[in-house]
């Protein structure tokens, strides 16, 4: 039996397209004048991720990863909260998840064929698949580490997928 290899994300999506999606999403969702800057900074000791899955001709996840403190600051910016109002964990999960959701929806719209978008999830980022099936933008928001990764799904541990 011959199984065709799905085209990796690196053949379907270039860095400029992901950046242009960020350029639209940040001012609209995070706030006026806000931007994701694709200049790497040192990663923090602890990170949190939010992601949505895309299921279709290409299957994988769109993942946003940053420090918990950055996620909280993003949430404050999204919600336009001012001291003494503080955001709670539920707000942070919701806001970071919605950022991943909007980025994921826009990534999905530029991929070929019909796909389905999952609901936002938050926690430790899902495992990556093939090495060539990852499009990662490592950068910063307000000087804080933040990455956006469009990554293929890791092979199922049961071995039902063809080993790469």
């Amino acid at each position, binding site marked *: 039996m011959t199984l065709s290899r799905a085209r990796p994300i690196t053949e379907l999506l270039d860095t400029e397209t992901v950046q242009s999606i960020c350029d639209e999403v940040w*001012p*609209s969702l995070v706030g006026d004048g806000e931007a994701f800057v694709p200049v790497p900074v040192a990663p923090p000791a602890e990170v949190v991720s939010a992601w949505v899955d895309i299921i279709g001709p290409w299957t994988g996840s769109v993942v946003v990863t940053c420090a918990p403190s950055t996620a909280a600051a993003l949430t404050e910016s999204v919600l336009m909260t001012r001291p003494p109002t503080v955001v709670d964990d539920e707000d942070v999960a*919701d806001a970071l998840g*919605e950022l991943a959701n909007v980025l*994921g929806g826009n990534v*999905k719209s530029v991929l070929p064929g019909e796909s389905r*978008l999952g609901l936002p999830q938050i926690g430790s980022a899902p495992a990556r698949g093939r090495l060539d099936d990852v499009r990662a933008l490592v950068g910063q928001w307000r000087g804080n580490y933040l990455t956006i990764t469009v990554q293929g799904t890791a092979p199922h541990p049961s071995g039902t997928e063809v080993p790469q």
Partner: protein
Amino acid sequence: MKILVTDDSRVMRQIVIRTLRQAGYDDHDIVEAEDGAQCLEKVGSEKPDLVLSDWNMPNMSGIECLQALRASGSQVPFGFVTSEGSPEMREKAANAGALFLIAKPFNEDTFKDALDGVIA
């Protein structure tokens, strides 16, 4: 006028409501629903003049909600505010009876373009 804003994300409901105000629609009553099933229920109980709904939600999606509304005879004006705006989804939305589909990210101008003529 009463507007029912439906999204499983509380953050996104707040953003939609804020954008409505920024777009100049600031003198309307706003009610909220967390998913399609609750939206369906609130269309019955709250009698909104317009529904703004996310597409992808747990329990009942926005498109399932719209289809259920039309199947029950409700003709409440309905528009999507969703993170996906592919031509296929726009066609599916229009075929189900949606007036418009606003893709996220959006701003007040996007809202004005879609809502002028719908909101008096």
